């Protein structure tokens, strides 16, 4: 417990030193929803189901994008720590490797939860997105597990790749593939078959679909359950792979 609270306190102190960090952490998905979501809604009049606006549809996308973004940024902090030398010193502190990763992810889950609460509240009040209170437990679980899953996934690469520029290239590719070959921005049914298959194999689609079901009730319950279980496996596999990568830091 000491190790976890120490890591959470450390991450909190580092974030608190920079107002830009705090602003970006908390309001970035909201900004995306307001600018991109409202823009598409207004200019293209996009609607998937009768009565569902693009803002409502896209809310799940921005919440998943936030999990994805936080994970990517936090993983990049391994490079910062490595450059500062503190990374290797921290590996000699009284904590296990899993505690190190869990501490980081717990802090980020906290940030993602606050971020989601702000985004949802303002989406409902400013954009009139109708929300289902019954879906909040599922939404919380999806944001929590989603943030953890993506962090472990990115950490795996951040720990294996030693060069900052190489990692940045990888994350750029990941952003392109994971975000656009998914149900984040558009429904999958009208897509060409190859793209649709790729999107269904994409863990971000699984997370987006669960969040969309939790927020506006869109989707088939059985399919959502399967996607949720698949994402749990993805998270567990990423966690163990990240632990192995951390243990191999020599």
């Amino acid at each position, binding site marked *: 417990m000491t190790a976890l609270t120490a890591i959470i306190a450390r991450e909190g102190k580092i974030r608190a030193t920079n107002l830009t960090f705090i602003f970006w952490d908390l309001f970035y998905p909201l900004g995306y929803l307001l600018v991109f979501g409202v823009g598409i809604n207004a200019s293209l009049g996009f609607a998937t189901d009768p009565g569902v606006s693009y803002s409502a549809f896209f809310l799940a996308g921005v919440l998943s994008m936030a999990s994805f973004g936080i994970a990517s940024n936090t993983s990049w902090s391994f490079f910062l720590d490595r450059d*500062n030398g503190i990374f290797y010193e921290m590996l000699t502190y009284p904590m296990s490797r899993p505690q190190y990763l869990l501490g980081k992810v717990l802090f980020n889950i906290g940030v993602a939860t606050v971020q989601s609460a702000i985004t949802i509240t303002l989406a409902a009040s400013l954009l009139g997105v109708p929300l289902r209170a019954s879906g909040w437990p599922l939404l919380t679980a999806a944001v929590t597990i989603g943030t953890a899953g993506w962090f472990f996934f990115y950490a795996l690469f951040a720990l294996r790749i030693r060069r900052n520029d190489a990692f940045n290239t990888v994350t750029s590719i990941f952003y392109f593939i994971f975000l656009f070959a998914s149900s984040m921005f558009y429904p999958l049914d009208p897509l060409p078959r190859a793209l649709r298959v790729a999107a269904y194999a994409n863990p971000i689609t699984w997370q987006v679909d669960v969040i969309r079901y939790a927020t506006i009730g869109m989707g088939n319950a059985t399919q959502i359950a399967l996607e949720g279980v698949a994402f749990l496996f993805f998270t567990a596999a990423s966690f163990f792979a990240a632990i192995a990568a951390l243990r191999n830091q020599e």
Partner: protein
Amino acid sequence: MLRNRPCGGKPRPRCPVSEMAIQVENLAKVFRRKRWASGSDIRAVDDLSFSVRRGEIFGLLGPNGAGKTTTLRILTTLVRPTSGAARVLGYDVMRHALDVRTRIVVVIQEQAAELLLSVRDNLLTFARFHGLAGPDVRRRADHVLDILGLTPDAGRKPQDLSGGFRRRVQLAKVFMVDTPIIFLDEFSTGMDPILKRSVMELLRKEVANGRTIVLTTQVLTEAEELCDDILIIDRGKQVARGDLNTLKLLTEQVYEVALTFDRAPDNVDALVDGYHVVRRQIAQNTLLIALQESESRVLELVSALAARRRLLRLEINGASLEDIFIALTRKETAS
């Protein structure tokens, strides 16, 4: 043979009783070349065995690439050994890494600091990892900042400080906790001589209070002044071991001769030819020679040199650690 005490397996051991702070047996570390890279595997540590008594300062010396840092990284649970055993206070570094980490504090070779946190927060954050928080720890941080001359910079971030000050921040952590073992990997890098001296004094006090220090250094005078016990390694293997006096015996009659003349001597090369010179240096009118010769041969050379120029000052000493180090590692390279 290092025997497993009853601490093997679960539940975790409370505290194995070990008279030795550190026990290393047949330790080896091989860094495998990547499949796509050229060259062969690197054997950084090769069948190394030693132990460190509690409450002493132990120096691990060797030329660049000797395996000092790798050995230290194994002992601090950063690197896994390829074979052999290493225990810190009786805890196996592989199987009980967390138990080891709770009992050590490490100053790694690279500069390490939380650049975005203030100097004070660096210390408080570190202490929190060791379960220390609250007013007592803040008071202790203030004291540590004071003894390391960091008080005026306590509120600044290390990213705004010079390399030497960042090193102080790193070293300050040693005094924030009471872990029984301190590992220092070239701790004095970037320190000015005055600070270095006061840090050495502080380290001696820590040892007097029962802590054990394991250090690596390239600055041999530092080891000479600090270490109770010294291990010299080269290419991962032990070259020599003992306190300074024991090591001096190993090098068989190495003398350090300093001669100051009225004018710079010439033809020194011709004069020293035929003598076994460990190292030689001319600065202004002073000639410094380390010789591995009998007393009579040393005096013979001194007489020959004194005949060339008027001798203003003569000093003959036994070997310094530097001479011993050069003699031993050269011998190892030749063999």
